[in-house]
């Protein structure tokens, strides 16, 4: 039984991978049109302002450990960090990244270094990718000074957060700066909706790459998500129908 389930899971992954490759190939020269998500429109404007006024962009990646399923949102955040580092390369100050997980902090530093090298910029600050704390609240307490004291005008909070995210959004509100925030954690999503200027709801955090034009594979992966979502909806409806009919 478990091998059958394994094969089915493997089949879904292979199907998604092939569909992603085909879509990425077909769309390599076109610009796909997606529904409007105000948070990403405002983010692009905020990034433009960061470059113009010589301020900083702060990206906080949460506490998603890389050895757990929560790493996906952090990895999506890292992909966005890389793209935003490229976009702000013309600015005076490199972005800073904070996180509450040590391997994630190392990866964020590595991402910023790679972006600096790619854009022919001087080597990124060695403390631009920071570990601010290892427990939820120490992470938030450590990230707040970065929001407050480092001439930050735009903040991106994207990753796995808990209730501590409200302390970060509150600090942003006090500084009267811009914030776009999203998490894969349901409690954090509710708090973000109540306290952030531009909340990302549900799986919108995984759409970030496509909306900031990270490449054709990002756009293709968003379309694959939509196709899979329709398949899941169909499966739920068929399953419910069969259950009601007494077949399942």
């Amino acid at each position, binding site marked *: 039984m*478990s091998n059958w389930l394994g094969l089915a*899971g493997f089949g879904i992954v292979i199907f998604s991978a092939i569909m992603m490759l085909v879509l990425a190939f077909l769309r390599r020269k076109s610009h796909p049109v997606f529904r409007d998500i105000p948070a990403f429109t405002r983010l692009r404007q905020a990034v433009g302002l960061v470059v113009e006024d010589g301020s900083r962009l702060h990206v906080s990646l949460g506490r998603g450990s890389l050895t757990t399923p929560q790493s*996906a949102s952090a990895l999506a955040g890292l992909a966005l960090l890389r793209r935003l580092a490229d976009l702000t390369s013309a600015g005076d100050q490199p972005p800073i990244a904070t996180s509450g997980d*040590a391997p994630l902090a*190392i990866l964020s530093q590595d991402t910023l270094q790679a972006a600096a090298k790619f854009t022919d910029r001087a080597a990124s600050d060695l403390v631009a990718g920071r570990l601010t704390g290892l427990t939820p*609240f120490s992470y938030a307490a450590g990230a707040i000074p970065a929001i407050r004291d480092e001439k930050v005008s735009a903040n991106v909070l994207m990753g796995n957060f808990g209730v501590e995210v409200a302390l970060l959004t509150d600090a942003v509100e006090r500084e009267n700066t811009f914030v776009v925030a999203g998490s894969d954690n349901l409690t954090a999503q509710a708090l973000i909706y109540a306290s952030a200027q531009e909340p990302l709801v549900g799986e919108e*955090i995984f759409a970030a*790459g496509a909306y900031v034009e990270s490449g054709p594979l990002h756009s293709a992966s968003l379309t694959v*998500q939509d196709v899979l979502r329709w398949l899941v909806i169909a499966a739920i409806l068929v399953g419910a129908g069969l259950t009601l009919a007494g077949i399942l």
Partner: protein
Amino acid sequence: MNPRRFPSLNAVISTAIAIASGLIVLAGYFFVQAANGQASLWTDLRLTLLDWAIILAGFAIFIGVFNLLQVHFKKIQKKQKGSFYSLLLILSLLVTFVFGLVRPAQMGFVFTTVQLPVEASLMAILAVTLTYASIRLLRRRLNLLSVIFLLTAVLMLFATAPLPFLGLIPGLSDVLRPFIAQVMAAAGARGILLGVALGTLTTGIRILFGADRPYGGNK
């Protein structure tokens, strides 16, 4: 050599290792048992790689602590705003470290008397912060969804907390609250979790393709 056009050898090797490791772990999850009923080779390899990952993650904490020290040393050196707190952080770190070496059995004392009350205080601040954020929500985003969000939050608070002299509110506490929490909220949460799972799947595939390389590979 221009890094825009030619990825370095380091980037190629790290990308190859990352993709191979990802594929092995993925195969280990899907093909658990061999034909003879024992754990498959993929499963053994997956568990070995995960053990390595856990060891590396443990070592990364040391690097993370050095990173933390570096950030705060720099702050003190440049006499930036809040450098006094940076000094306090470094001193606290050193004192805790020495305490851990000298009296390892009593390390719990530091957590229960310092760390725990400080984190509990931050949790208490959170209650105030959230109340204030809810009040500001309508000023920030005046739309139907925000109104529904606030009304639901207030309704749930009324339904959960007993009123003085009245106790639980009939109809609200026993009918409406379970309906909202167990039907509407649970259904919405499952929909969001399914979406997050699909996003996780596509993010993983992008990493396996080497499209996202958070390990320093040049784009």
